[in-house]
Structures are given as C-alpha cells and as structure tokens.
C-alpha cells in the first residue's frame, strides 16, 4: 500500500496526526473498520462456501425447507449491539467533547477566520486581545475583511491571507464565517473539519500537539523517492531536503523546489534524470495545510492556506512583530 500511496510519511491509512483530540477520532475509525472486517470476512467466507457447495450439478437438489439459522439472529443482534457501543461508547463522547467544551477565554488564542472565494482570511486581535470592528462597506481587495481603521481596537490587529500562524500546546478558538458561499474549514492532519456558512459564525476549537511545530515535523516527513517513481504530480509540493549531488556537483540544492508548474517541473525531473541522479531526498515545503472541503466554485480546489505552527515563544514573537508594522497588515 505504501508504494501506491507514494512513499512519504503521509501514511497509508489516516494522515499523520498533530492535534490532541484527533487520537480519539482515529481510534474510532480504526475500531469501526476492525468491526467491519469482523462482519464482512465470515460473511464472505460463508458466501463463497454456499456458492461452491450449492452449485447446481447432476444429482443435487435444492431443499425446500429453509434452514433454521439461529446464527443469523445472533449475528444481527450482535451487529446491533456493537453499533450501539460504537455510537454510545465512542462517537457521542468524542462529539460532545468536540462541541461542548470550549476552552476558557483567558486560556485560548481566539481568532476570526473569514472565508471567501477563494481564500482564507485570518484576523488576529493582536496583543490588545480586542478585535477591531469590521464593516462590509469597507471591503476591498486590499482590505478583505473590511477592517475599520478608525476603530482603536483595530490598530494592532493582524490580517493574513492564506497564511495562518498558530501556537502549539495552547487551545485555539476559531470563529468561522464566510462572506459569500459555503466553504468548509479542513485541516486533515488535525482532524478538524467544519463548514463555514455565510450569515453564521461558528466556533471550533482544538489544541495542537506540543512538539508539532512546523520546523520539527518537516524533517520527520523526509522521504527518499527513487528517480523512476518521481512523477511531478507526486513531488510538486516537496522540496529537496538535502543537497543532491552527482559526482560532487550540486544538481539540486537543499530547499529547492521541484517546480510549481507542470511543464517546468517535468523538465526539471527530466534534467535530473539525465544528469544521473538516482534518487531524491524530499520533504514537504509545508506539511500543514488548511483546505476547503466544500465545493465553492471553479477554484475550490486551490482554496488552501499554509499553517505555520510555532512554540509559544516564537508565536508571541511573531505576534508582536507583525502587529508592530501596521503597513504589513494587508501585505500579502
């Protein structure tokens, strides 16, 4: 399976997990699938047995009377009981936890996420902890959320487009809204998904694992891809993890892109092959992405944002630095 799914650490089953609540979701997924196999395999064996044993052949006659199948009753009741267990024992508690227990206001990082065709706008309150007012009449390409400059609370606010900085190990509380159509806020690696609906503000919250800073997970995802498996599609988001050398000549420097564009990317791979490079050591340019999970128009597939996770100190540093430069607010 790993071969088929490409040889990265992105996994053959669920993707890697960097959030605290995600473990219980994964566990449920695993248990359900085990359950499914436990039902399906005996079922399939019995099926095949019947197909072989009861085929029409000379001298073989069907029996009119139905078999007395207590087993089927047990199986049906068993299925029902197990479903009840899945529901009551696993799914509902997780969901209740996911929905009912928001982190206390003084312990969380609160921010606003405003979705639109086709970008994610992130609004941080800045060091003062107060969100500036927004007005739809002020919205423009350079002020995507319509932040009111005349509101003092907006002075230190930070607005970022398609770039989201988050601290690890601190509850994050997002208030999701949309300006136009329905989007869906999805971070597969965090097991977070929530539709973003215009006219509503929907909160979600989660906490990122302590050691899941971008800088530390990127190298974990390092992988070696043989040149003949390196199709452009599979490597387009990956960069060279080390200097690639052929006879001491660096043909692909560390951090180099494999090309964001189909033709150029293919050419580059071709060149590398010609130069005699046999394998690539790669890592994701950015391992954490926010994607849009709800069809929202022709560029829905491109609607994504990069998540940069930082330690508490780094995040605080980023926050103060970014808010100090008001002209940076809408610089994207």
């Amino acid at each position, binding site marked *: 399976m790993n071969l088929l799914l490409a040889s990265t650490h992105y996994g053959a089953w669920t993707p890697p997990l960097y959030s605290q609540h995600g473990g219980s979701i994964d566990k449920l997924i695993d248990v359900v699938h085990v359950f499914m196999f436990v039902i399906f395999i005996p079922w399939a064996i019995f099926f095949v047995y019947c197909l072989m044993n009861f085929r029409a052949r000379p001298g073989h006659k069907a029996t009119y009377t139905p078999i007395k199948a207590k087993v089927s009753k047990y199986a049906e009741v068993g299925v029902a009981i197990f479903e009840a267990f899945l529901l009551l024992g696993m799914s509902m508690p997780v969901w209740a936890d996911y*929905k009912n227990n928001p982190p206390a206001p003084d312990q969380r990082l609160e921010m606003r996420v405003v979705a639109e065709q086709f970008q994610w706008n992130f609004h941080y309150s800045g060091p003062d902890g107060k969100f500036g007012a927004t007005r739809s009449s002020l919205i423009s390409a350079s002020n995507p959320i319509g932040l009111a400059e005349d509101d003092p609370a907006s002075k230190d606010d930070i607005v970022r487009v398609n770039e989201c900085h988050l601290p690890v190990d601190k509850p994050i509380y997002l208030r*999701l809204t949309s300006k136009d159509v329905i989007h869906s806020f999805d971070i597969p690696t965090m097991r977070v998904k929530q539709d973003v*609906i215009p*006219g*509503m*503000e*929907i*909160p979600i919250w989660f906490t990122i694992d302590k050691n899941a800073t971008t800088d530390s997970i990127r190298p974990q995802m390092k992988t070696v891809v043989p040149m003949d498996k390196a199709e452009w599609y599979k490597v387009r988001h990956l960069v060279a993890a080390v200097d690639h050398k052929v006879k001491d000549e660096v043909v692909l420097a560390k951090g180099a892109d494999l090309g964001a564009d189909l033709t150029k990317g293919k050419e580059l791979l071709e060149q590398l092959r010609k130069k005699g490079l046999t394998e690539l050591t790669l890592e994701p340019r950015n391992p954490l992405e926010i994607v849009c999970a709800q069809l929202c128009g022709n560029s829905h597939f491109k609607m994504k944002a990069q998540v940069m996770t930082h330690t508490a100190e780094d995040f605080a540093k980023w926050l103060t630095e970014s808010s100090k430069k008001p002209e940076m607010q809408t610089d994207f």
Partner: protein
Amino acid sequence: MSHHEMSVEDVKKHVRTYIAVFVALLVFTGITVGVSMLGQNQGWTVTTAVLIALFVASIKGSLVACYFMHLISEKSMLFGILALCAFFFLVLLLIPVITVSDNVGVH
C-alpha cells in the same frame, strides 16, 4: 360506507350537511379575523395568536376534509396513508426548530 350505493335520500341528507358546514366555515372565518383584531388590540403574545389562529384553521380544515371530502366515511387504509403523510409533515415542520435550536454557531 361507500358512496357507490347511495340513494337519492342519502344525498339529500348530505346536501343539508353541506349547507350547515358552509355556514360554519363562514362563521369561523369571521371568528379568525375578529380574534386576530382583538389580539392585536390586546397585545397578545405571538404564541397565543398563533395557537388560536391555527386552532381555528384546523377546525375549518377538518370540516372541509371530513364533510366536503367525505373523509369521515372512508376506510382505514386511507387513514393509514394520511397518517403516514401527517407524520412526515410534522417531521418537515421540525426542520426550522432543529436548524435554529441545536447549532453551535450563531446566526
């Protein structure tokens, strides 16, 4: 009873019922309007107003269904189907409740 084998006498009896129902419907229409005006003057709560209005409308509706549409003399098979329909109708009417009440977001 099926209308199939109805005698002229039966029909004449029916006609008298129809007239009575007609009068009742007109009276109830008057009541609805009157009550609603009263309610507006007295400043009843929306719930009261809705309940009364729907109550009167239901009476009128039942009269039409039972007598004009002869529901009162139909067989139980039809009731079964209409009960099913009524149940799903109620489910439909729950949609607003569930959309508004149990959503983590705010409108």
